[in-house]
């Protein structure tokens, strides 16, 4: 029944010739085509019949067409924005269980307020003097001019990031070429593999996340409604065996503004739903978010439990490496990994059997 969905909109009217005398030719060739039509060899032709002969045509809604006439963006017709897991009780349960676990084991919120030019030297000190490493590193926010480039090239990211480790970098369509260049550069040592391209879609031009019409030489063709966040992986991690480190397919690569109906926060440097994607994916507890430059009043940098947020704008400045380490040891499940004859601790969010049962594993267990 339902699956015989009929999409039949462009050629309503079927095989009657809608175009009896097509005129204009391309280039500088004019002249009559009529004669040629007659001469034309008989060719296989393709006609589109209405599905049920005459009569009613069921047409799918064309949201782009509707937007042209009403100004209501297509995204606003998506029915599971407020609750993306609508209709899937098991998936909802899984998300709730993971959330509880992550919150229970999160370190307290840390902020490191620091001028842009001191970010790189400070991070180098963290690495050198305190041996700090992070499993999840997010860089950037939803602002156009965030000066990520110099940071990326100066920072020994591969030393700051644990192996396996996960990088989330924000960019606009226009900036993506630069990122590609970076990932293939010597500075990055090709150590990070681009693995997923997350997209955050905002509701419309009134959103605090609206990027504007763009600046610079190349103007976009469309009203922009999206931000890109690259997910890169370093080190070896296998989805089949490393389930203490990662959980795959919990979230999707698309997050829509307003997805957390309960959240009061309408504007943040980074939408909370993207933090959640990172938290649900990596089961490690050390998370760092670097926002390299000031981003203005409209998107405040808010703290988040489980994250160290480094930015010239962050409201609270309470980070120090020793307190952080204490927090990590008291909140995480510690597993030691043998590495070159030394025991290296892994700081993990412990998982429950219930989560293990519910999480997507193989195509058979999806539902």
């Amino acid at each position: 029944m339902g699956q015989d969905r009929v999409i039949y909109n462009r050629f309503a009217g079927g095989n009657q010739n809608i175009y009896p005398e097509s005129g204009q030719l391309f280039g500088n060739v004019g002249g009559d085509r009529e004669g040629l039509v007659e001469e034309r060899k008989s060719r296989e032709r393709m006609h589109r019949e209405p599905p049920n002969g005459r009569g009613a045509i069921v047409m799918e809604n064309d949201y782009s067409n509707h937007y042209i006439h009403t100004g209501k963006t297509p995204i606003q017709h998506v029915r599971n924005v407020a609750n993306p897991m609508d209709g899937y009780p098991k998936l909802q349960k899984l998300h709730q269980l993971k959330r509880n676990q992550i919150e229970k084991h999160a370190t307290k919120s840390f902020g490191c307020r620091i001028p842009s030019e001191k970010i790189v030297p400070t991070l180098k000190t963290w690495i050198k003097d305190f041996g700090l490493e992070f499993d999840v590193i997010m860089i950037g926010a939803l602002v156009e001019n965030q000066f990520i480039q110099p940071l990326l090239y100066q920072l020994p990211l591969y030393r700051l990031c644990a192996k396996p480790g996960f990088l989330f970098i924000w960019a606009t369509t226009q900036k993506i070429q630069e990122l590609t260049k970076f990932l293939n550069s010597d500075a990055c040592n090709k150590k990070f593999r681009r693995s997923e391209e997350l997209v955050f879609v905002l509701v419309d031009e009134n959103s605090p996340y609206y990027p504007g019409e763009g600046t610079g030489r190349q103007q976009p063709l469309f009203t922009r409604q999206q931000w890109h966040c690259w997910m890169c992986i370093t080190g070896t991690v296998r989805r089949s065996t490393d389930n203490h480190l990662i959980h795959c397919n919990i979230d999707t690569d698309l997050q829509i503004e307003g997805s957390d109906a309960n959240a009061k926060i309408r504007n943040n440097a980074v939408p909370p739903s993207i933090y959640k994607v990172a938290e649900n994916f990596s089961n490690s507890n050390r998370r760092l978010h670097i926002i390299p430059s000031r981003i203005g009043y409209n998107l405040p940098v808010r703290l988040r439990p489980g994250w160290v947020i480094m930015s010239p704008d962050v409201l609270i400045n309470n980070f120090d490496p020793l307190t952080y380490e204490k927090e990590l040891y008291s909140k995480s499940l510690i597993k030691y990994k043998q590495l070159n004859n030394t025991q290296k601790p892994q700081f993990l969010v412990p998982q429950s059997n219930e989560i293990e049962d519910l999480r997507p594993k193989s195509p058979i267990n999806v539902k």
Partner: protein
Amino acid sequence: MIDTNSSKIIGYFFLEHNYDLLQEPIKGDLKLTFNTFLSYLSSNPFKSYDKELSYLPFLEQLHGFYQVSGKALEFNFVFDSEKQREKYRGLKVPRITWINTQKITILLDRLEGKNDKICYKVSNVVQSEKDRPNREQLWALLSQPFNTSADIELHSRSNAVTVFNTDFNTLDQILKKKTAVSQLAKKKIALKTSVKPFYDVCDNTSHSSTLANLILNKKELRNSTSDSTQVYKVIQQNRNNMSQEVYRCSHQKIHFLPIFNQNTDLSLGDCSYLDTCHKMRACRYLHYFTLQPCAAKYNYEDSLKEASKKALNHEYTIGQSFTDYQRKVLPPQWIKCDVRYLPFSILGKFAVIISDPAWDIHMSLPYGTCKDFELLSLPMHELQDEGILLLWVTGRSIEVGRQALQNWGYTVSDELIWIKLNQLKRTIVTGRTGHWLNHSKEHLLVGIKGNPPWINRFLDTDVVVSGTRETSRKPDEIYDIVERIIGLHARKLEIFGRDHNIRPGWLTIGNQLSGYDLHERELVIKYEEYLNKREGSKPLNR
């Protein structure tokens, strides 16, 4: 050179006598100006000024003033270097032609030590109420939009103290305001675009269950091929068994009627595959029947005609071809061919190209496979001098695609995202559709070559929301969006198209099409020439 004091005196002199000097009878004559200056000196008590000043030293000082004031004076000769100053002697009457009082004012302000002040203030005000706790007041302050203003105090002579209030919110709003061009272009395109029937989804679950109970068990509808006309017949027959509200709503909105059979286990929730589930009868998850009102009256052709008639009355015609209304859209054209071997030169040039290649990229390889290499080496430059190219990409091919566009001479200007909807108009969140995360969208890279002035920007957004269909079939909305950008009559090409891609106004090429059908005369001639040549050369190939 000139000292501060002399500069001041000359400056005030010019400010005071600005008009007298330039008008009759002086008319900027340097000698007369000198005389006026002497009388200005004698009538003002300047202690330290040489009252015995003669003409040539005056010129020296004037030149000094001319330089420090940033050329506040203009002459009818070049008053620059020593050498050129000699030249004016040959002139009948060397004159000052213009006195820039603004510059002189700035110079004098500097010399007098008056600096313009710019004070930025945050002018948010919260009335302090004694009974309200401080925290609440602070919160009220923070939740307002920030209102910063800059007061610029100018100590100019002409306008003693001027205060400009620059409120950044207002400034921001002015900058963000849509230009008349973009507003009119939007209005025009709305008139030109046919209005397609559109139905909202009813979220009232009692409607859906009422309708499901009444309809889904009826014998007439057991047959799964029943179409909506039949379904509405059944609704008509059962009109008395439902409330007026439900009846009306069933004709106005889309309803998803839950299908219960003996295997359905409600606690499991919806089937991930919904209407595409292969074992719907055995499947224990919930499925739905889509009850959608029919648009019996809608006719694509008529609505297009109506739209173009409406658009005629709109006087905004910028970016529009003046023959628009006389021209007819060509019927669909297509050629079945192996894209790799068809000489692109016979096809002519196009304003837009869409390509949906079957990417074949192995996760383990750093670059595309042989097939992709072939794709990237297509002579795309032969098809477009300027225009736009749209390239569908997935997963790893996103990067290869971006690189390809660059190599072909395009700048990636946008990325259209297609958000895939399922039967229930929800995004696809289950089903392990990606390796690390699930995939609910696909990317369409948009590249621009050259600087085509005929493209209309900002009519659509870069997010397309549309249902999924057969594997790899892309939404038709893209065609309309493209036509809005480049106009209905521009030449349009689709590469790697299939039968369902052919479309009026478009030329489609690909190896899964059937035969060929062409209408543009030049194209017909060239293609048949090519066919004949190929026929002729075949024996040689053997």
